[in-house]
């Protein structure tokens, strides 16, 4: 399953995003932000590729800023 990685400014925004997305039935996974993307000690969300666009719209409407969207290699 291909997924996208969403990054946020802080943990407060990650939690807000996670709750909004779970609230509309999206399956999200919280992971530490990979160091290849950011050297900060934050968290990010993994969202399935087919619902990533929808997730972005929902978060924008919910007032949560998504800092970056990255391709995610499942390995």
């Amino acid at each position, binding site marked *: 399953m291909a997924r996208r990685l969403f990054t946020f400014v*802080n943990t407060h925004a990650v939690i807000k995003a996670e709750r909004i997305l779970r609230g509309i039935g999206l399956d999200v996974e919280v992971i530490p932000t990979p160091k290849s993307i950011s050297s900060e000690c934050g968290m990010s969300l993994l969202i399935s590729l087919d619902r990533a666009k929808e997730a972005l719209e929902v978060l924008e409407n919910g007032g949560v800023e998504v800092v970056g969207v990255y391709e995610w290699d499942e390995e």
Partner: protein
Amino acid sequence: MSGTRNSGGILYLDNAATSFPKPTCVWEAMEYYFFKVGGNPGRSGHRLSYQASGMLFDTREALARLFNIRTPERIVFTKNATEAINLAFFGLLSPGDRVVTTAMEHNAVMRPLRYLERTRGVRVDVVPANSLGILDMEALARALDERAALLVVNHASNVAGSLVDLARVGAMAKDAGVPFMVDVAQTAGCYHIDVEAMNISLLAFTGHKGLLGPQGTGGLYVAPNLEPTPLIRGGTGSNSELEEQPTFWPDAHESGTPNVVGLAGLRAGVEFVMERGIDEIRAHEGGLFERFWQGAREIPGLVLYGPDRWEDRVAVVSVNLEGRDPAWVGHRLDRDFGIMVRVGLHCAPSAHRTLGSFPGGTVRVAFGLFNTEEDVDRVLGALDTVARG
């Protein structure tokens, strides 16, 4: 869920200093964090850290619901209302700024303002109140005619219990274009506070009084059009590659590991208050006040301070026995009757000057959510005995 009664025949009537006892759910929430979570929020990448972050998130959300705050991330946690007030003053005021405040302020407001007046060239104008502790609204209107950087008001006096009409003052501040800051140390959890409807730009609250949380919790809400500089800078778990403080909220103002165990308890306290309902809490405390006020009038030589009408006040009541040192009255209540009150100046010399009780101070009886009519009768009986003895 009910509150725990205090034991050993002690009657606690010092709820304006800190509420006691606390609801059982408060320490259960703290226990849950302490034994089951334990992580440092916003730092590490593991589930216990993330769960701790979630607990802080939930506390912010609960407070946002209580105060009708649309942007919970702009609630910054502090250790008490005093720190919240300092954050606002030191973060927003510049030399030459004029601040309008009231004669009923606590030293949490007065001391930092007087310091800024003396050292940074901030002008402080104090609006008087009458001898009942009720703010002079005409003088306030005149004070707002001149340009001001901030209006700071104590919602309810911690000495006389007198309330300020926040909706009315908020509308005046809006008309004058002045940011409106309110100290709700004595009213959060006991009175309806709506930052939108009352046009409040800065709300400083404490967690351990009417919100029924533990000591060491409090916070400041800052409206989106104001950006104070941080009082404290340091690690936030975010933007760690940078040596500059982040500017986004709440991180900008929350450096260092927060009091997660306390804030977990605060959430439970806030939810307890909301479940019980502000209207019911207000009605309960009103009943206690009316019973006390009526009975107190019958006690010989007992001087009562503050407004007579419940609409004008909260259940913080100041009294004095004519010719008696308040410290001695307080000691008798404790030693002979097991009743805990607070005597003296209550960190509010300006309020006592206004009420005519400076420098001796008063005996302050502060009822809380868990007090009963029997408690009122017991303190009245004790005061009557002390008055006649």
